[in-house]
């Protein structure tokens, strides 16, 4: 079945995180990977006084056609949330389009996320646990890019690896992040809405 979102030419992604978690860096890596997949991409971080721990967002459009608008995202069809506690702090679902996908860092169930009806698919990834194993710290940004790749199929793991390699990580950091992306991809669980339940 082809959903309305899959027919859509331009996709709008909003990435939520907290200052210091690398949401903006993640959006740059993802932009590179999307370009490698032949997509046109514009990524814009939301901006403010950078404070560690404060909610931040990054915006991205990708399309198989050239993109002219250099604007923020108000009607996303993909929401990537790299921090488990962010949904309590900001309305991550603002403006969400019908048949949207939420890619959420969480160890909880889809039912616990209180998704509006417009969200018909969730991708769950226990990114904090993975981050603690890979980095010994709760770093989740690149793990969640792996989850995005699984959710969309629009970017490949190879594309994300290329994005990582151009992101100026030091050697050990690059190795860890390559593992992180792959574990995010492999360990994400995709759930589809069926009425009131997720299967």
């Amino acid at each position, binding site marked *: 079945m082809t959903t309305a979102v899959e027919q859509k030419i331009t996709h709008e992604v909003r990435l939520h995180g907290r200052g210091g978690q690398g949401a*903006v860096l993640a*959006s*740059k890596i993802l*932009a*590179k990977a999307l*370009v*490698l997949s032949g997509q*046109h*991409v*514009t*990524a*814009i*971080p939301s*901006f403010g*006084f950078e404070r560690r721990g404060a909610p931040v967002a990054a915006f991205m459009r990708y399309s198989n056609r050239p*993109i*002219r*608008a*250099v*604007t*923020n995202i*108000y009607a996303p069809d993909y929401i990537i949330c790299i921090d488990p506690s962010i949904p309590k702090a900001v309305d991550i679902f603002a403006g969400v389009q019908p048949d949207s996908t939420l890619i959420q860092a969480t160890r909880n169930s889809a039912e616990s996320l209180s998704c509006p009806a417009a969200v018909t698919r969730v991708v769950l990834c226990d990114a904090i646990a993975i981050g603690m194993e890979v980095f010994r710290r709760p770093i989740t940004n690149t793990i969640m890019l792996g989850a995005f790749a699984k959710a969309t199929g629009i970017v490949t793991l*190879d*594309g994300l*690896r*290329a*994005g990582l*390699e*151009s992101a100026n990580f030091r050697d050990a950091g690059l190795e860890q992040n390559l593992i992180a992306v792959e574990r995010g991809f492999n360990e994400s669980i995709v759930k589809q809405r069926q009425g009131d339940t997720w299967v």
Partner: protein
Amino acid sequence: MATPALKLKHPGCAQSIVCDGNEAAAWAVALARPDVVAVYPITPQSSLVEYVSQFIADGKIEAELMNVEGEHSVLSALHGAALAGGRTYTATCGPGLAFMFEPYWRTPGMRLPIVASLVTRDGITPQCVWGGQQDAMTMKETGWIQIYCETVQEVLDTTVMAYRIAEHHDVMLPVNICHDGNYLSYGVTQVEVPEQSAVDDYLGEKNINWHVALDPLRPMAVDPLTGGAGGPGPAKFVAYRKGLCQGMQNALGVIEQAHADWAEIFGRDYAPLVEEYRLDDADYALVTIGSMTGAAKDAVDSARERGQKVGLIKIKTFRPFPVAAMTRALKKVRAVGVVDRSVHYGWDCGPLYQEVLSCLYRAGQPIAAGSFIGGLAGADLTEGHFARAIERTAQLLAGDEFDSPVWLNEHD
């Protein structure tokens, strides 16, 4: 593991990268091979000078990097470098530009072809660190050439072109390449990087201090005390001023030629002065500047689908103002809505709107005009905002004119 390469779409390009506008500007600086770069960081310009500094540290740019104590010293240092014959670069914005002001307005009078990126930022107060064009617009009567970019690729391309324009012997003036803080400075997209050898050919041999120099072999008075009401002063002063005005007028043709040659070598064709978009059969038009233009073009397309005969005029070169090109464009329509990302306090409108009003006088035909102001201090200008501007401009056609500006983000 080999990194998959991005495909190149244009001739004369060496590689394709994915980067933001600040990094794109830094790549342009590398391609232009400056001799001296002086910097002081300020939001949202900081990452630009960090990229340039990194390129110098990596040996990618063989330039003297001067980390000085403030923007006044930045530009003063570049004065010395340019007088010694060096190609120079800096970038600044907002309060940094304000602190640079004294050497800044000295630069055009000395006819120094310095290139400086303005990563445009709104003015203070109230306190704000976000994008807006108030800083650049405040400087519009200082004699610097000002060129505004729409896309990240255009930032890279135009920053290289700036050296060709500034150093042209009929121009010899400093150039500001303006790119919108936040939306272009941090906006990431695919960009093609020209080949070094092609850029070397494009820019040619530099000859920067043939007219004014700090050179023991050619002793001369630089920036002499002149003017006053007697002796040779008045005529001398007029010669300086008139020469600067002539240089600005010469720049219009040089900017066009620089863009035409760029298109031929690198395949990317930008309207150098004024771009006309869906204008030929339009009844009315929006006038835009900078990165807002993409969303405005989308809004024009949507309105066209609804049967509205609307077009768009984008200004790229704001100083010198392309009076003939703008007047020619305006004469194609019967109403215009001018969207500014800054404020003209004196006239209660946007600065671009005020320039357009002057062109309407030259056009010599009745064309209704209205001022819209939006995107201040990082505020977003979306297709929805431009749809409203289009509707309100359509009402001008019906005779419903307005005097005070429409503030597009007033109810966001």
